[in-house]
């Protein structure tokens, strides 16, 4: 239960792509004055974030990341066995975006492609899913594309959510490598708290209708409609600071890995408070906990690969690293992975 040992797989490369457009929180009209804005930035750590233009989607960001990664890896497109696209902001309800990406990227028709819906836990779950598919040796090369246009699901009039989130897409190349230690994963779910992070309309429980677009004021500075994101901040915070350290500790124990042997702890970039709290509980000092929330905000599922590209790319390219990654969020869903990397391909951050 909960633990997986997935041998014979390695991460061969990681790329990330963000939109060029920057929004600085200090300039946000959502804050009543400069003091408020400063306070917010101090507690969340989020100075600025990137936002997509109307015509860009998560799949576009992932596409650019993937093209760059394939090129730098020198992979033949016809050799890519599997493509998984994980997002909460797909291009269409129907068809799956992974099929569109298969064609757009020029991959073989024999490519196994599907979409997965998960939020902030997605990249680690993705390692597990893609790793499992490749581990058996049936497949040799896979692309895990993880991205979200979080800003498209947030109300621009909601100061409790809009300033926290940014957009990004990523591509992770996973390869069959017989004899490799692979990935060790711990995962969990608590659906009893599913409403802590949700969008009320737009699915099939409550389909979109004209009323979905009505903007409703919940309190001063919090105005949104039913197609926009709701978060119970307190519930999410409580969940994070209890469940997340537990998952990481359990995985480290199960994998027989000591704290001092971990080069970097990669946490989902919810905000500074959460990252600091979790890393201090686990006794990981700042130097070993790279962050990207300052410049990119909470980019949901792609925050871990984005942080890797943004902060530790030179280490990834030139060293052997022991890494722990933990994603946690909507569902509520969480997963921790322990894996090693050695001189992997990691192109500079792509901006579109």
């Amino acid at each position, binding site marked *: *239960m*909960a633990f*997986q*040992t*997935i*041998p014979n797989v390695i991460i061969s490369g990681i790329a990330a792509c963000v939109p060029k457009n920057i929004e600085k929180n200090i300039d946000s009209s959502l804050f009543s004055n400069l003091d408020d804005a400063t306070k917010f930035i101090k507690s969340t750590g989020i100075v600025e974030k990137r936002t997509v233009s109307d015509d860009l989607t998560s799949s576009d960001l992932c596409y650019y990341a993937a093209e760059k990664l394939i090129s730098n890896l020198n992979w033949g497109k016809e050799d890519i066995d599997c*493509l998984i696209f994980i997002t*909460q*902001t*797909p*291009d*269409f*309800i*129907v*068809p*799956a975006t992974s*099929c*569109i*990406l*298969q064609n757009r990227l020029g*991959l*073989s*028709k*024999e490519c*196994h*492609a*599907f*979409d*997965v*819906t998960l*939020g902030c836990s997605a990249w680690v*779950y993705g390692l*597990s*899913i893609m790793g*499992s598919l490749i*581990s*058996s040796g*049936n497949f040799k090369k896979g692309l895990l594309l993880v991205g979200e246009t979080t800003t498209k699901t947030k109300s621009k009039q909601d100061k409790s959510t809009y300033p926290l989130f940014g957009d990004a897409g990523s591509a992770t190349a996973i390869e069959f490598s017989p004899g490799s230690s692979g990935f060790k994963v711990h*995962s*969990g*779910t*608590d*659906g009893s708290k*599913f409403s802590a*992070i*949700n*969008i009320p309309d*737009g*699915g*099939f*429980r409550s*389909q*979109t*209708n*004209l009323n979905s*677009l009505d903007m409703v004021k919940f309190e001063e500075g919090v105005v949104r409609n039913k*197609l926009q994101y709701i978060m119970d901040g307190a519930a999410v915070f409580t969940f994070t600071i209890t469940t997340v350290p537990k998952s990481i500790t359990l995985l480290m124990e199960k994998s027989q890995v000591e704290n001092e042997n971990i080069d970097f702890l990669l946490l989902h970039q919810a905000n500074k408070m959460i990252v600091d709290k979790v890393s201090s509980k686990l006794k990981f000092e700042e130097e070993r906990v790279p962050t990207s929330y300052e410049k990119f905000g909470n980019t949901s599922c792609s925050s871990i690969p984005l942080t890797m590209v943004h902060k530790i790319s030179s280490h990834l390219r030139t060293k052997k690293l022991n890494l722990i990654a933990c994603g946690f969020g*909507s569902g*509520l*869903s969480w997963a921790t992975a322990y894996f090693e990397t050695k001189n992997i391909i990691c192109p500079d951050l792509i901006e579109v």
Partner: protein
Amino acid sequence: MGFQNFKNIKVQGFAACVPKHIENNENLNLLGDSEQIIKFIETTGIKQRHTVKGQSIRTSDMCLVAAEKLLKELNWNKNDVDCLLFVSQTSDYIFPATSCILQDKLGLSNDCFTMDISLGCSGWIHGMATISALLQNGGFKKGLLLAGDTSTMTKSPFDKSSYPLFGDAGTATAIEFVEGVDGIMVHTSTDGKGHGAIIIPDGGFRNFYSPESEIYKEYEDGSRRNNLQTFMDGAAVFTFGITKGPRSVFALAEKYNLNLAEIDYFVFHQANKFMVEKIRNKIKIPSEKVPYSLDEYGNTSCSSIPLTIVTRLSNKIQNEKLKIMTCAFGVGLSWGSIYFETDGIVCPEIIMI
């Protein structure tokens, strides 16, 4: 490329659930006069469909009922279910993932690995491959694949090229890690060039929902649809299905040395009878080996294969050793085949809610 053999994986049971409410194509004015209705039913084979029309039943509700039944019949301890996959294109919410909600509703452990897959008619095939991959290393032992759709919710009642074809259903398939068994063999393929052949234009993030999305437009063939409803290029889908379907089955058989003559049953995605018969003839399969559920249930998207097994092969699958070939094809475009063997497994009667 495209082929996967998952050893140590056993299919342990199937269950299915449909809404009680039936829509009868014999009374459907949309199809035209009585002559046209007869021709439609003769060609497609679809006499009636079970639909959620006007009710609050959703895909996850039907899958929940199917799962509860299956777990009970299997005598599985809920705490032992290691992973749950929910395959659908009619999930409860944009997010969170419906599988998380089902983890709670089913009373599964917090240690359960859950994820949603978004795929249509080929969804059960891809879902089986994914869950088998997750189980095959032995870390996870028991898994549930819940596949279903409320397809009728995405079809325009004024579009006779799609509305009369679809029904709603939710299914559960139980898979277990069992050391030493041959496992399942899979072939999958994707062709995103055809992604426009079956599409809902608005409601995703390429074309966000707007008031314009609700406006009905009239099309060349006389059908009326809005942008939140499925457009289906029947001819393109037909062409694709009758060529790719057989090719996938032949390719899988060749790769894994399967003798097609020894297979007991071929369970095809229940698109429509005209198409499936063409496929059957191409592969030269005698008709008694190809069960149909579409006459009573229509095209139920990703659940059509398990639904057909439950409604047409339940007795056989519970009491006999069977060699089964399954093949599905559809939206994406995405398609694939799976071969597996069963040896007297759990398969309760269909549940209606």
